[in-house]
């Protein structure tokens, strides 16, 4: 892989006298992509620069969980950098030819900052930074949701990035086509008979809320997807692979859901304007309510459940032999419990 990287970078930067890849290593974790870190030592006219980089590579299709395009993610990152002040990695290249790295891949800047979110909460050593980090996160999210979608998504690449028939031409059509995706997607994801999942999808359709303008949503805005520095500034929002046109409340609901499941406290750490939601509402004017937030916790859980459960079904039906997919039965069970709680199921005490 190291040699392939050097050859690829040499083709992209023909003006460089020498390119050497150093410190190449696999980054463990991350369930949807294979990720590697390295430093590109680039010499031009006798001057050497060191570029810290990350290679994010798609897994083989049968193993993959989220089937979106690295080129689309690359284009979005470039547009976010160009049209907002949201901190994101510079995306250097998207290489869609699987012949180069084995699968489509992208090369992005490795941004400085810590991803150790647990240190911000529950008595962690960076707890004094939590308020600033959470407030900045809230403000960056609001900025994303206030950005003109025509600037961030000029060619409509993220109208339906999974290619599942989502119609983003209006909020109503978006919601209705997403409900269809969930309900029709059940048969692709029923690795076992899962009545609770079907109940959740139908409940989401029955309880359709009031409309808001469609905006670019991060799609996986959760406590694991940002970096921060020692002064409490957010240095990057990462993992934009699930970004799409959507309802802005999706990002809020998913963050709240993952905040609960991750035992973090992003939502509770914002103090200004009465808290995260109040601050967000003040900036955006969207007037999002607690009830809407709970609805979109359910909606966001479904949005992740469809591809995750589908990948699990492919493993159960032995389309591939990855252990990961059997392992993620456990977080899937946690998600099913969350579905049940959000729908108000009576849960016997001691069950969770």
């Amino acid at each position: 892989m190291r040699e392939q990287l050097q050859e690829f970078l040499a083709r992209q930067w023909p003006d460089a006298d020498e390119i050497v890849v150093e410190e190449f290593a696999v980054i463990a974790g991350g369930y949807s992509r294979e990720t590697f870190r390295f430093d590109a030592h680039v010499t031009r006219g006798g001057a050497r620069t060191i570029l810290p980089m990350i290679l994010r590579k798609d897994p083989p299709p049968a193993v993959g969980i989220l089937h979106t395009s690295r080129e689309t993610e690359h284009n979005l990152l470039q547009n976010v950098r160009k049209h907002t002040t949201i901190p994101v990695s510079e995306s250097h290249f998207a290489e869609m030819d699987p012949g180069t790295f084995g699968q489509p891949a992208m090369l992005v800047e490795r941004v400085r900052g810590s991803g150790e979110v647990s240190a911000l909460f529950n008595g962690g050593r960076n707890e004094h930074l939590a308020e600033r980090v959470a407030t900045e996160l809230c403000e960056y999210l609001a900025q994303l949701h206030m950005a003109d979608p025509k600037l961030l998504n000029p060619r409509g690449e993220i109208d339906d990035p999974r290619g599942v028939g989502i119609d983003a031409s209006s909020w109503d059509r978006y919601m209705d086509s997403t409900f269809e995706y969930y309900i029709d997607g059940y048969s692709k994801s029923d690795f076992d008979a899962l009545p609770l999942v079907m109940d959740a999808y139908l409940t989401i359709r029955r309880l359709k809320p009031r409309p808001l303008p469609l905006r670019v949503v991060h799609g996986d805005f959760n406590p694991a997807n940002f970096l921060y520095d020692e002064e409490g500034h957010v240095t990057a929002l990462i993992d934009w692979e699930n970004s799409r046109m959507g309802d802005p409340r999706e990002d809020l609901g998913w963050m709240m859901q993952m905040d609960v499941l991750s035992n973090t406290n992003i939502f509770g750490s914002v103090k200004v304007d009465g808290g995260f939601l109040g601050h967000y509402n003040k900036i955006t004017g969207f007037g999002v309510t607690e009830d809407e937030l709970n609805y979109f916790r359910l909606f966001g859980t479904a949005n992740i459940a469809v591809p995750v459960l589908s990948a699990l079904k492919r493993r159960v039906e032995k389309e591939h032999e990855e252990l990961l997919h059997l392992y993620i039965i456990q977080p899937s069970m946690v998600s099913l419990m969350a579905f049940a709680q959000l729908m108000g199921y009576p849960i016997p005490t001691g069950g969770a």
Partner: protein
Amino acid sequence: MLTKPTSSDMIEGVMTALAKDVLPELTSERAQVVVIMAQGVLQAVRQRIEVEQQAMAAEHNDMTALFREMAAALGETPGAEADRMRARARELGGQDDMPQVPSFATINGSYRELSQGLVDSMPDLDALIRAGNPGAEKALAKAREYMGKRVAGDFATNVAGVGMAGRG
């Protein structure tokens, strides 16, 4: 409970990962031998789990009968040894028969059929609720009462510990 993947499928998945992802990376001969032994143990567990309860119930009944038959064969033989054999026939051979446990495939298949019936009921209840049928709301509440118990049980039996490997 989950009918798929079965416990045996899960163990097979671990065995495959050991063979495919772990064994080729091991340089220590001792570690290689341990992995091969672990695969043998896991295979034995796979063979055992789907018949264990059925076999125990059936053999329980065979053994109670055996105690009675052994005592009958000794007849009125005098002596302490024969007395102990007759006492075992009364105490152990007198235990009630265990009910026959259906085969794993039978239980699994029947459970799955009922679960699928619940899945199929959801769109019907949804349509009735959207049509304003108050009985359908009650029926859904009943279903949720059962499914709440079920999800709690699934959580307790399928989730091991907290946190996920590889996540910060």
